[in-house]
C-alpha cells in the first residue's frame, strides 16, 4: 500500500504538471480539446491525491509499523478516532492533508464551472495546478509520508524491518477537538487559494471585476468560516488541554493563523465597495493576493523553525521551498498587476468623507495594520538577531498592548459602518442613527461598572459592544417593521423574512453579533484570578466566591493511557455546585509522556478552571492550580453565532415577488363582481 500511495502521488504530480503546461498552451492556442484535456488532468490530479491520502490512512488504520510515519505517530492502542488525527499530526502527513483539502476545493471548482466562464477557467486551472505542483513536490520529493523502515547492514545493504508497535500520537493531540481543529484551519488556509486563483486569473485575462468577485464571494466566505472555526477551536483546545488558564497566548503559530483571517476579513468588507460602486479594485486584488501569501507565510513560520513556538513542527528543510514559492508567487502577482493594472481603474468617485465607503476604507486600514503589527511582532525576534548581537523575545504583553486598541477601534467601526449611508450621510441622519446606539453603549458600560467589571479597556469594550449590539437590533427592527406593516406578519417572523430576503447583509449582521459576544468574552480576561496550592485530601482553597475542596484522588487505567485523577468539590457558600475531575494522563507508547485534562465548571458569568498541576516534589502532595476566568463562555457562544451568520450569508436570497392576482371583491353593483388587483407575497429564490 505504501508503494501504491507513493505511486499515486507521483502520478498526481505528473498530471498537475500536464494541467499546468497544457493549460498555458491551451490559453495561447485556445484549442477546445486542449482546454478540455487539461481540465480533466486537473480533475485526475485531485482524484490521485485522494487515493494517496486514503492509502496513508489505510496504513495508519492497519497498524503497518513498517512505515516510518505510522511508527512515529500511531500505536496499536490508539483509538480509531485518534488514528484519523494521526494523519495530520506529523509534518509529512499534514502536508499531504493540505494537498488533500486543496484537491477537494480544486475538483469542486473544475467541475462546478466546467461549462461556465470559458475565458477565465483555463487561467484558473493553470494557477490551481501551479499551487498543486508546489505541494505535490513537497509530498513526493521533500517530505514523503511513505517511507519504509530499513536497517543498513555493514555492507550498505538495506533490509526492511517491521516494528512491533509505534510511538503513539502526541498526547496533546489526543483530545476530540484536535480531530476537528486542524481540518478546519487547513480548510481555511487552502480555501483562500480559490479566490486567489480567480483574482489572478481575472487580472491576467482582463476579466470584468464584478464577475470574478461574484464568482469567488461564496468561496471566500466558506474559507473564512473554516478559518474562524479553526482559530476558535484551537483557542478552546489550548484552554481545555494546555492548562495554563488562557486561550490565546500570541504564540507564533496562533499568530500565523490570524494573519490570513485578518486580510480575509478586510477583503470580505472591501469587496462590497467593488460590487456596489466599482471602487477599490486594485485594493481588492492585492488583498486576495496578500491573504493567500499570508496562508503560505503562516505555514512557513509553523514548519521552518524560523520562530520558536510551543506547538510549531520541528525544524525541517522545507523553509527554503516555502520562501521560493512565496517569492515566485509575489513576482507573478507583480508582473500581472504591472501588465494589466489599467483595467482595475475605479469607476466612481467618493461623494463624502462621512459615508459607508469611508468607513470601509478605515475598517480595511485597521485590519491591515492589525495584520502587519502581528506579523512584525512575530518576526521581530528574527530581525533582532539580524541587526543586534542578541535575540529579543516578543511575548503576549507586547501583543496585548498593541492589539487591544486596534481591536477596539475595529469594534467601533463595526457599529459605525451600518449607521452610515452609501455616498453621503447628513448630520441629521447621523444624529438620528447614533443617539440610541450610543445611549445603549453607555448603559452597557454603566451596568458593567455596577457589576464590578472595573477596568478602563474592559469598560470601553463593554460600551462598544452595547453600541454595536444596538445598531444590529436597529437594522433588524427597521426592516422587519416595514415587512410587518406590508404583510401583516409578526415582528419576529418579519425579521426572519427580512434575513431570508437579503441573507448576505443580515448574515453579516449575525456575524457581527457573534463578534460582539466574542469581545465581551475577551474583555473578561482583564479580571482573571488564580490560586495555586499544595493540597492534602480534605484541604480547601478559596477562589472568588467558590471554595474548592480536594475530596479524594484515584487512578483510572484506560486503553491508551492511565489517568491520575483528583476529585475536587466546588462549593458556593454552603451549597455544593458540582464535582470536578482534573487529570494527569500518562500515555503509552511515548516514554513518560504526560497530558493534562483540565476540569471546567462553566457559566455565562465565569469559568471555574481547575488543573491538577502535578505532585509537589518536596511534599509529594498534589498541587491544584485553580483559575476564575470571567465571561469565557461568551467567546465560544460568539463563535457559534459567527458560524450561523456565515451559513445564513451563504444561503441564496429569498425573493419577495409582487403578484397581481384577481380577487373577488364584494359586489358594488349587482351586475358583476369587481376584479381588483391585490398584492400578495410569493416566495422564491434567486
Amino acid at each position, binding site marked *: 500500500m505504501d508503494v501504491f500511495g507513493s505511486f499515486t502521488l507521483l502520478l498526481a504530480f505528473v498530471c498537475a504538471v500536464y494541467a499546468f503546461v497544457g493549460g498555458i498552451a491551451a490559453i495561447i492556442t485556445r484549442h477546445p480539446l486542449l482546454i478540455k484535456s487539461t481540465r480533466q488532468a486537473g480533475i485526475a490530479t485531485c482524484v490521485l491525491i485522494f487515493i494517496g491520502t486514503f492509502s496513508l490512512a489505510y496504513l495508519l488504520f492497519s497498524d503497518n509499523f513498517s512505515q516510518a510515519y505510522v511508527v512515529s505517530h500511531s500505536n496499536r492502542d490508539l483509538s480509531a478516532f485518534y488514528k484519523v488525527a494521526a494523519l495530520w499530526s506529523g509534518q509529512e502527513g499534514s502536508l499531504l492533508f493540505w494537498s488533500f483539502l486543496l484537491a477537494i476545493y480544486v475538483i469542486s471548482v473544475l467541475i462546478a464551472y466546467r461549462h461556465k466562464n470559458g475565458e477565465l477557467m483555463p487561467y484558473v486551472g493553470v494557477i490551481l495546478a501551479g499551487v498543486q505542483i508546489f505541494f505535490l513536490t513537497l509530498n513526493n520529493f521533500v517530505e514523503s509520508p511513505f517511507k519504509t523502515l530499513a536497517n543498513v547492514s555493514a555492507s550498505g545493504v538495506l533490509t526492511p524491518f517491521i516494528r512491533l508497535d509505534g510511538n503513539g500520537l502526541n498526547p496533546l493531540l489526543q483530545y476530540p477537538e484536535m480531530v476537528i481543529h486542524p481540518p478546519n484551519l487547513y480548510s481555511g488556509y487552502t480555501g483562500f487559494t480559490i479566490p486567489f486563483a480567480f483574482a489572478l486569473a481575472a487580472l491576467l485575462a482582463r476579466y470584468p471585476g464584478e464577475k470574478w468577485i461574484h464568482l469567488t464571494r461564496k468561496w471566500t466566505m466558506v474559507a473564512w468560516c473554516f478559518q474562524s472555526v479553526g482559530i476558535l477551536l484551537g483557542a478552546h483546545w489550548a484552554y481545555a488541554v494546555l492548562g495554563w488558564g488562557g486561550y490565546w497566548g500570541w504564540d507564533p503559530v496562533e499568530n500565523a493563523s490570524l494573519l490570513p483571517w485578518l486580510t480575509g476579513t478586510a477583503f470580505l468588507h472591501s469587496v462590497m465597495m467593488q460590487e456596489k460602486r466599482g471602487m477599490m479594485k486594485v485594493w481588492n486584488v492585492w488583498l486576495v493576493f496578500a491573504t493567500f501569501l499570508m496562508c503560505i507565510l503562516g505555514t512557513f513560520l509553523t514548519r521552518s523553525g524560523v520562530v520558536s513556538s510551543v506547538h510549531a513542527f520541528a525544524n525541517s528543510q522545507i523553509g527554503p521551498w516555502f520562501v521560493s514559492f512565496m517569492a515566485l508567487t509575489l513576482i507573478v502577482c507583480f508582473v500581472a498587476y504591472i501588465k494589466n493594472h489599467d483595467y482595475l481603474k475605479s469607476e466612481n468617485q467618493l461623494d463624502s468623507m462621512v459615508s459607508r465607503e469611508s468607513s470601509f476604507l478605515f475598517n480595511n486600514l485597521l485590519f491591515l495594520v492589525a495584520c502587519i503589527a502581528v506579523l512584525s511582532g512575530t518576526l521581530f525576534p528574527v530581525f533582532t538577531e539580524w541587526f543586534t548581537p542578541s535575540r*529579543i*523575545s516578543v*511575548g503576549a504583553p507586547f501583543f496585548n498592548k498593541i492589539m487591544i486598541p486596534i481591536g477596539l477601534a475595529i469594534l467601533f467601526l463595526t457599529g459605525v459602518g451600518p449607521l452610515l449611508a452609501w455616498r453621503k450621510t447628513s448630520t441629521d441622519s447621523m444624529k438620528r442613527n447614533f443617539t440610541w446606539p450610543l445611549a445603549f453603549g453607555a448603559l452597557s458600560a454603566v451596568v458593567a461598572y455596577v457589576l464590578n467589571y472595573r477596568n478602563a479597556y474592559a469598560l470601553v469594550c463593554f460600551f462598544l459592544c452595547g453600541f454595536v449590539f444596538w445598531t444590529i437590533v436597529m437594522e433588524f427592527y427597521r426592516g422587519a417593521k416595514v415587512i410587518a406593516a406590508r404583510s401583516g406578519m409578526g415582528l419576529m417572523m418579519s425579521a426572519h423574512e427580512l434575513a431570508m430576503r437579503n441573507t448576505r447583509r443580515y448574515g453579516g449582521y449575525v456575524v457581527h453579533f457573534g463578534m460582539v459576544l466574542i469581545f465581551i468574552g475577551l474583555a473578561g480576561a482583564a479580571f482573571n484570578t488564580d490560586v495555586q496550592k499544595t493540597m492534602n485530601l480534605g484541604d480547601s482553597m478559596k477562589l472568588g466566591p467558590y471554595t474548592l475542596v480536594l475530596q479524594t484522588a484515584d487512578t483510572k487505567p484506560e486503553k491508551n493511557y492511565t489517568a491520575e485523577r483528583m476529585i475536587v468539590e466546588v462549593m458556593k457558600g454552603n451549597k455544593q455546585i458540582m464535582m470536578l475531575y482534573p487529570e494527569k494522563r500518562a500515555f503509552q507508547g511515548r516514554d513518560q509522556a504526560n497530558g493534562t485534562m483540565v476540569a471546567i465548571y462553566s457559566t455565562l458569568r465565569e469559568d471555574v478552571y481547575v488543573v491538577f498541576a502535578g505532585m509537589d516534589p518536596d511534599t509529594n502532595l498534589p498541587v491544584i492550580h485553580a483559575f476564575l476566568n470571567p465571561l469565557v463562555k461568551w467567546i465560544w457562544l460568539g463563535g457559534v453565532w459567527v458560524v450561523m451568520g456565515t451559513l445564513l450569508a451563504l444561503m441564496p436570497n429569498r425573493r419577495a415577488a409582487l403578484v397581481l392576482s384577481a380577487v373577488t371583491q364584494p359586489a358594488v353593483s349587482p351586475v358583476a363582481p369587481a376584479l381588483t388587483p391585490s398584492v400578495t407575497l410569493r416566495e422564491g429564490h434567486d
Partner: protein
Amino acid sequence: MIKRRNLLALVFVAALSVLPLIAQQQQTDRVKAIGGKFQCMCGCSQVLTQCNHVGCTMSAAMLKNLGDWVNRGDSEATITQAFVQQFGTTVYAEPPKSGFSLIAWGMPIAYFVLGAALVLFVISRWRKRPQAVGVDAAAPVTASGAKISPEAMERGRAQAARETED
C-alpha cells in the same frame, strides 16, 4: 479626655499594625507587575508569573530572586539588568522601550499613521476626480439644469438597483 486619648492611641496602634500588611500587598503587586514583563526561561514561552509547571525549577528560582530584589527595594531597572545579565535578552516578555527594540513599539504606530495618510490621500483623490458622463442634446435634465445621457441614466438605474439591494 483620657478616653479620647486612649481611643486615638488605639487607632494609631491599629494603623501601625495594618501598615505591614499594606506594604506586603504592595510588594506582591510589584512582584506581579515586574514579573509580568519577563518570560520563564524553562522554554515554555510563558510569562514568568504565569508559568504553571509544577516543579519548574526555572520559574521558582526566578520568582524567588525577583521577590528578594523587590523586598530589598531594588528599582525595576536594576532588576531588569540582573535578569538580562543572567539569561540574556530572551528573558524579555516584551521588547524594552529603548534602543533597537523601540522599532517594535514604533512600527504599529507608524503603520497606522502611514495607512491613515494613504487612506486620506485616496479619499481626497476620489473626491476630486471628475466623473465622465456623456451628454446628449435631447437628454433628460437634472434639477440643476445639467443634461443626462440615456447611457448615464441606464448606468444610474443599474447602480441604484445594485446599491439598494444590500
